[in-house]
């Protein structure tokens, strides 16, 4: 183990490694002052996979509750059937898509044509414009949710905490006006009213729709929505890391063999 001993013997090494450590912590140190709840998700860790049933339920909550104000513009209906996601059947996806309509193209007289949506279409947007969205929501813009999990520090835990974190008791020193109180939201005053109540939806698979269950399922669904290729990424990562570990052992043996006679 000459090589490693030589590396570590050099006190410089430790400091250089720290450059990186420091910067990483410096970057991730920001976040909400309220510590996020961590319910534990199946997709965490290097081998984590999505819980498909939870994704399906999460989609149901999204489409029945969230979608009235929040878009999911980066997603197409076809994504719902692709591997590594909720994996609805193709038939089911066609059925879901056909429930929405879109203005697309013109007829022979130049009149806009309306048709029902196809799996290849993007999810419908709840509002025609940002201004309309603001107008309908007291001036607050309901953000698109496609990337919300990646756009917040510790995204999925934050989302889970936020959705189930609404509280009726407002601290005395906080003036929130028309807004709602949610200690997980930075500042505490959030424009979104509490969206989920027990049995806001009736789950297709019969699971009891508690606030906790729905928050969990939506956090799951939106994590997938933020990166539908996550399972593929971790699967490929395993193969690549496996290859590299074998490769690095062979390379180490080659180096030691080669330098054995160099004095």
């Amino acid at each position: 183990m000459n090589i490693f001993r030589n590396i570590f013997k050099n006190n410089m090494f430790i400091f250089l490694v720290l450059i990186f450590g420091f910067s990483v912590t410096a970057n991730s140190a920001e976040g909400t002052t309220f510590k996020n709840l961590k319910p534990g998700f199946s997709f965490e860790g290097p081998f984590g996979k999505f819980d498909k049933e939870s994704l399906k339920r999460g989609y149901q909550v999204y489409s029945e509750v969230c979608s009235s104000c929040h878009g999911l513009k980066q997603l197409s209906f076809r994504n719902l059937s692709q591997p590594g996601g909720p994996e609805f059947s193709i038939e089911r996806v066609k059925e879901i898509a056909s429930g929405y309509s879109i203005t697309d193209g013109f007829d022979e007289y130049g009149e806009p044509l309306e048709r029902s949506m196809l799996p290849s279409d993007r999810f419908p947007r709840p509002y025609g414009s940002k201004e309309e969205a603001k107008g309908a929501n007291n001036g607050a813009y309901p953000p698109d949710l496609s990337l919300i999990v990646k756009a917040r520090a510790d995204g999925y835990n934050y989302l889970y905490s936020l959705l189930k974190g609404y509280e009726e008791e407002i601290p005395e020193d906080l003036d929130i006006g028309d807004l709602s109180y949610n200690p997980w939201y930075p500042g505490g005053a959030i424009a979104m009213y509490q969206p989920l109540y027990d049995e806001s939806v009736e789950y297709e698979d019969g699971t009891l729709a508690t606030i906790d269950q729905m928050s969990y399922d939506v956090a799951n669904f939106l994590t997938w929505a933020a990166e539908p290729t996550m399972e593929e990424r971790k699967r490929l990562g395993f193969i690549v890391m496996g290859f590299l570990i074998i490769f690095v052992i062979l390379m180490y043996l080659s180096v030691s063999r080669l330098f054995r006679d160099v004095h």
Partner: protein
Amino acid sequence: MNHDYQYTPKNGFSKWLDKRLPLMRFADENLLSFPTPKNLNYFYTFGFILTMCLVTQIITGIVLAMHYVPNTSLAFDSIEHIMRDVNYGWLIRYMHSNGASMFFLAVFIHMFRGLYYGSYKEPREIIWILGVVIFLLMIITGFMGYVLPWGQMSFWGATVITNLVATIPVIGEPVLTLLLGGYSVDNPTLNRFFSLHYLLPFVIFGVVILHIWALHVTGNNNPTGIEVKDDKDTISFHPYYTVKDLFAYVVFLLMFCYFIFYNPNILGHPDNYIEADPMLTPAHIVPEWYLLPFYAILRAVPDKLMGVLLMFGSIVVLFFLPWLDTMKVKSARYRPLYKIFFLFFVIFCLLLGYLGAKPPEGIYLLLSRVSTIYYFAFFLVIMPILSRIEKPSPMPIGISNPAINNTSDSDGGVSGTPSYAMDSK
């Protein structure tokens, strides 16, 4: 250096080629038989690692450019298109974004290595200066690349940094307008940043060739800082250092792949997954981690222009290093005082990186100022003084000869036990 060895073309074709374009001779002399000090440690593998980083960035970047749209209304969505719909687009994009971080990590280690072993000293001044040019180009390229996804940090980072130009008296404003293609960061800015972000890596590539060329004229420095005396001090580049560099690169790749596959967004800022909104300023505007030390220096000074000058000065000062440190002994291994000041220098650089991510107030501001002062004092005060007063510790006669050099004109005739004595301090 090895003067006995000569490249000899072996077959008819290589003889024919050698008379017309001595490509094989060039490759042989520079990549295969190139005599390299035999005592290089793993800090000397970062040159190869950096070359691989550059190649990776260029290849992934070219593929990304096939799918990316440099337009303010489409850029953000085109990145998501790459992430979701392009085959292995997520992989290529994560390689490129994390690759930039790996590139900077490697270049920082490479530069600290040069500082520690005195690799900038005679006769390697040009190598060092070209290296600083590369570093400067890397910073500009990295900064422009970060703007392209057109997220919140892209936009606001670009706004903050480009506005620094306006602090320059007289020419500041017109130069800023030229840089932005208007009066604020907007579509023309994105277009020119994209164009330059595509161009500069090839400029870097050109300077890297000069950097390596200069290196192959003088030969490598080594951990003892003692120049190579004869063939006994060197081994051929291939297979010794090709294999050693490759091993180090695979170790580096393991770390790189950890980020790509298991933690691809940890080095970025969550706000950059929010599309740029000129009407909404983020709570904290922070650059990418590798620019944080410079950002801390910028903000350590109350005067904006002074801050800008110091920030650029922190890199410009590196150009003068060979003439600030005139100590003949190169390696810090035999410089007990320099070694201590160097360690503090590394600590203060790390501290600056940490402080760059903190708001410039209270204790953070104070520490930024102390670190900034030390940063400049290290080069402008400590180095020149140490050059005069420091007494080097006993040194070996040569790379292959661990016997202590007691006389000034020893020719290395003493035979010592062949050992790893060079590596034991």
